[in-house]
């Protein structure tokens, strides 16, 4: 009898505790869901967390003074300038190709600006949103000049180094399947290890996006001994990425990126943006937030593009200083020129 009483009392406590537990769980849930979108999170934090590669000269790397540089990094800065008014309010997270999507969908980074190729399966089944392309690239193949390899067919029985979790890994397989060339893939998780293995001769070829191969070649022991094959194996549109189902935040990243392109089309640069104060061109006045409510409609300061251009510059400036004529890589604009100059860079109207 006494035992039963004890058990009943213990059970009662169980139920009470259970009730308590459920209420706290509900409370927590309410707190997380009412936290709203990523835009509010970034604003209240006062800092943007941006996922970058960190090891690709020209796109994202750390220079001698310890600051992050590159085209991908400048996109992060542009978003920070748009949302927070300060291009330096960015915390960079170095992510390798296998971590990046998990870090993004897990909320560890707000935006991913890491040479990520826009594909339908990443857009749908992986659950990502792709902002406009900031660099149109194609997959290439780096070989040693004295290897005698001139085409993909020459890779029969040879080894090719590749970084895992990339579209290049899949494109390589597709290309070789089509050519029925039997090759040996040597798949590295870390890009540094992959390039090290290639340069000491484990593989006859190293495949990646052409821009990345050019950038990486400059860091190899003897850059002149390596050459890019005259093949383009795929389309590689690279751009910033956010997660699914957060339209407000995606819009901010998307239109900030478009703004960089539109600014170049308008001819607005970091140096001359101040001279457009009180301009009589209504398009530019709207763009810079002197008229209309384009910025506030998005939950940003109305002059967000003026901030971005003043602190980071327009797309053309970003391109030239990181990978173009003003950099050691001197890549042609090519497909990355404005649509008015025969390229693919095109922004929908700001109105």
């Amino acid at each position, binding site marked *: 009898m006494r035992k039963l009483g*004890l*058990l009943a009392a213990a059970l009662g406590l169980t139920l009470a505790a259970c009730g308590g537990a459920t209420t706290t769980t509900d409370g927590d849930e309410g707190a997380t869901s009412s936290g709203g979108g990523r835009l509010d999170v970034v604003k209240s934090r006062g800092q943007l967390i941006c996922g970058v590669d960190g090891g690709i000269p020209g796109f994202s790397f750390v220079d001698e003074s310890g600051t992050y540089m590159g085209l991908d990094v400048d996109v992060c800065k542009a978003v920070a300038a748009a949302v927070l008014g300060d291009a330096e309010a960015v915390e960079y997270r170095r992510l390798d190709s296998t971590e990046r999507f998990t870090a993004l969908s897990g909320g560890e980074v707000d935006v991913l600006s890491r040479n990520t190729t826009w594909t339908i399966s990443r857009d749908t089944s992986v659950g990502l949103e792709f902002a406009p392309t900031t660099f149109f690239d194609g997959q290439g193949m780096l070989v040693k000049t004295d290897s005698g390899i001139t085409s993909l067919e020459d890779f029969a029985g040879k080894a090719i180094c590749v970084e*895992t979790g990339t579209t290049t890994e899949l494109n390589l397989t597709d290309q070789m399947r089509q050519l029925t060339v039997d090759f040996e893939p040597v798949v590295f998780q870390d890009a540094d290890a992959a390039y090290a*293995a290639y340069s000491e001769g484990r593989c006859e070829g190293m495949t990646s996006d052409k821009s990345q191969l050019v950038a990486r070649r400059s860091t190899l022991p003897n850059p002149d001994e390596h050459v890019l094959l005259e093949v383009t194996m795929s389309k590689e549109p690279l751009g910033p990425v956010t997660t699914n189902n957060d339209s407000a935040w995606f819009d901010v990243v998307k239109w900030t990126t478009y703004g960089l392109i539109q600014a170049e089309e308008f001819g607005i640069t970091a140096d001359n943006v101040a001279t457009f104060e009180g301009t009589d061109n209504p398009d530019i006045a709207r763009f810079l937030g002197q008229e209309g409510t384009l910025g506030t409609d998005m939950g940003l300061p109305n002059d967000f593009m003026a901030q971005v251009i003043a602190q980071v510059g327009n797309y053309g400036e970003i391109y030239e200083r990181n990978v173009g004529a003003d950099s050691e890589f001197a890549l042609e604009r090519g497909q990355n020129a404005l649509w008015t100059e025969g390229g693919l860079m095109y922004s929908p109207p700001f109105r």
Partner: protein
Amino acid sequence: MAHDSGGKSFDLKAMLRDERFWKIAFQVITLIVVIALLSFFLGNLNRNLLQQGRAFSFNFLLSQAGFSIGESLIQYLPTDPYWRALMVGLGNTLTLVAGGIALTTLLGVVAGVSSFSKNWLVHKLSRLYVGLVRNIPLLLQLFFWYFAIYGALPQPEEQINVLGLAFLNNRGVYIPWASSAVLAVLGIAATVGAAIAALWLWQWRTKIRIDTGVGGQAQLTALAVLGLVWLAIITLGMNWTVPEGVEGGGVTGGLRLSREYVAALSALVFYTSAFVAEIVRAGIQSVSKGQWEAARTLGLNAGMVMRLVVFPQAMRVIIPPMNSEYMNLTKNTSLAFAIAFPEMYSIATTTYNQTGRPVEVFVVLMATYLILCLLITLVMNQLNRTVQFKER
């Protein structure tokens, strides 16, 4: 006990003072907290996945993988589904585990026993090896073997020919091997079978000699016949192919162990063996001094003292911690992905990256390693039972 008021009226104070009540209550509370935490985290995961439009599901395992894999035990094409790619990874992990356990046992026991050697050099070498290798992280050692040791081998054009039987170059190691996979499996089975039979015969012979004091000649003959049969199967039945160097670099025939595999195997074996050596040393030291002295008094030489008296007793102490070393080795094979060996973890990361299903893939991964380790434990527990004291 002064609870004479109990029974009908419920005395709260008395209950709160009762130790038995709290014993039950604490267990119930702990259970509730655990369940509440689990359900909160799982619910949170599910909500977040649903919010991103991705319900928890394993259907992706049936879609086409689309990536190629460098080496594989089973037939694999890029058009095969993800589950088959994961099987390839599991196969590669298993070859690493099997080779690792066999070689680690050998090297670890030799290194452990050597630390008792009267030979100054052997003793010091054993201590140096354990001291050095145990204190360097395994990942560093993997890179060291991959880049510094096997990376220093020459290009295929200038490959090293070892007595015309094997070749070494910076792509891998080429050794003689049976001409077909079926023959290779039969050969390995014959070797294991012969070893077990030989052990059994030897124990039988020892038993007869102890019981009767004479004899054992018949068993010795049987042992010799067994050895000859095994030798015949291995030399004549395997249809060996010897690797041959090709003009201008490269090798045909034989078995190719990729540089990734040999580097991963070397690092794992050298690393784990250092721990095994310490376990063996501890086991041997646990045998009381009296046993050594008694054995020597009987006129046994140093080797026989170790083999017949000390080591069998040390086994009781050695086997249980060996179990955890084997499990460590099994789990550590996942580090081989850093040097591009396509084992289970490497294939799994590629899979979750392409499909965007990290949670599902990690469930598969954890289950795989859990099952592997449980299997090892099962075998080791059986082995442990046979070496423990027999109560008579």
